[in-house]
């Protein structure tokens, strides 16, 4: 019988296990740092929106040109993209990701409502916006394509605001928003100029519904998270 150095087999096993544990710890640490970045961004945006709401309340009697354009910051757009990435890589069921996504959706709604209020007061400040309801749970084949269209329009028209809501979040505010526009559960669903549209809408169709896009330049958009590719498991309310 040939001699086997069992010690070496064991040492190699321990080293390999050590590599696995090290990689696990590093991965956890880095993922945690990413989530903290998302949380910090969320908090910053929340403060920005609260600040604008307060400004609006304080300047209720003031003329429109003194009201700053509501914030739909680049951070909000970046937050949406990063949330999509986190959802795909940390898991749609990750509790922290779900919480962040819900908070992000609420921030989008607040920003939308703020924009509507300012538009009511100041006729010339009505934003060009689209409400977009989607699902990335694998039950909406047209959603991914619609996401590409909206991303493309957003990059062409800076001031076009796209408010994208995942219908699987089971967030009451999203359900209420849907009921305000009398939407059923079909996805994708777009709300443009108060009218609802179901199924895939091409770029050309959307442009025809928003003639102002061609005449106005825009600034800042809310990112659509509907460009996430392969559907993960349904986002369930983890709370």
């Amino acid at each position: 019988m040939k001699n086997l150095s069992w010690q070496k087999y064991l040492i190699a096993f321990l080293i390999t296990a050590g590599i696995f544990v090290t990689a696990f710890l590093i991965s956890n640490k880095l993922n945690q740092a990413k989530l903290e970045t998302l949380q910090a961004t969320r908090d910053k945006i929340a403060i920005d929106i609260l600040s604008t709401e307060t400004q609006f309340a304080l300047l209720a009697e003031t003329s429109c040109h003194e009201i700053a354009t509501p914030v739909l910051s680049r951070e909000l757009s970046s937050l949406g993209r990063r949330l999509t990435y986190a959802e795909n890589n940390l898991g749609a069921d990750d509790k922290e990701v779900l919480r962040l996504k819900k908070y992000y959706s609420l921030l989008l709604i607040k920003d939308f409502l703020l924009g509507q209020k300012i538009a009511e007061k100041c006729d010339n400040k009505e934003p060009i916006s689209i409400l977009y309801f989607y699902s990335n749970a694998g039950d909406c084949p047209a959603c991914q394509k619609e996401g590409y269209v909206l991303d493309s329009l957003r990059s062409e028209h800076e001031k076009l605001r796209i408010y994208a809501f995942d219908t699987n979040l089971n967030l009451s505010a999203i359900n209420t928003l849907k009921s305000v526009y009398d939407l059923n559960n079909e996805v994708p669903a777009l709300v443009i100029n108060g009218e609802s549209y179901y199924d895939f809408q091409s770029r050309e169709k959307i442009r025809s519904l928003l003639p102002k896009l061609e005449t106005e330049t825009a600034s800042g958009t809310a990112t659509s998270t509907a460009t996430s590719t392969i559907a993960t498991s349904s986002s369930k309310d983890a709370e």
Partner: protein
Amino acid sequence: MIFSEIIFYSILFIALYIQVFFLLTFFEHREILKRPKKQTRPKRYPSTTIIIPCWNEENTLSRTVLSLLALDYPKSKLRVFIVNDGSTDETLKVAKGFEMNPQVSVFTKENGGKHTALNLGIENTDTELVGCLDADSYVAENALLEVVKTFENEGVDSVIPAIRISHPKSIIQLVQKAEYNTGVFLRKAFSLLSAIQITPGPFSIFKRSVFLELGPYHRAHNTEDMELALRLQSHGYKIGNAHRAFAYTEGPRTFPALFHQRVRWIYGYIMNVFDYRHMLFNRKYGNVGMIVLPAAFFGMITTAYFISLIALGLFHVVSDKILQIQAVGFGDSFGMPSFDWFTVSTSLGTLLILFAISATLIIVFTGKKMAENKWRPSLDILLFVLLYGYMAFTWIFKGVYNAALARGKETWR
């Protein structure tokens, strides 16, 4: 989803384990990397016969013979047998051109396969050592000295050299260059484990007593070099590696030629290991049965698995891109993406794959240091890292398919 993750991490664990094991073995003896300042000489010079089996090798035979005649070794102790195995070109004529040299003997026979040519040479010699050299290969001047020193120092029954690719020109040959340099490392690691599993055609040398005791070469699915090594290991014979004895071989120039060669090797390997399956995971046969033979099969599984994952990923990327083009047209689908550090993957799988790639690169660079005495990155390493996995994927599948159906066509090459 969980089942696929278990498979993924299990394969990664085993792959890393094997890499760690070989690296650990090698670096226990890292003094190997140091080149001795002075060339030492063996205490004695055993009589040696090198057999060159030939079949249609008119273009390369001369170089092979001349490299043997130029070996730094007493002429009286070295014989060269050229065995023409029914060549249909001018090989015999080229061989006969060397007959005037007292060291050279030329034999000719009807075509019967490489193993029959080798066996004819073995039958006709009485030297202490017998070796072989493929007719498309050649050796460095000090190769036989290094081999003989290994016989002396390690008390082995057979010695294999370090094989390098000769003058690579095409991309395919450059990939093989890095592959063979990696092989220099692996062969050394295997020899330190007493677990060499192939005695390759280019310049493997044996004590003649091995053939007297174990018998001649067998056809062995036209991979007689693999079968003989397994036969030696299964009977408790020792195979050493002279890592400073360099033999150079011509690698196939094109992918179809390389594919054909490797399918034969994979098929032969699987069939030979099947014949010697009693050695697998059998402690009686030491490290060759416990890790080296299983590692080769596991390497095939790993390659097939990860290349399949990459292919699946590419499929999804392509189908998403097609969807995007359908949605927004070609022009808007290929903008410059902006980099966000956030999207750099930090998953456990990614980090482990990075570890595995790092371990592979350590092996590749250490092999290069042993073969070329250089550490710096080179084009062949880059091409090897980028292309080898995909290339190996193709011949692994075909070789396994042939073995499964046991209908590999067994030809010279």
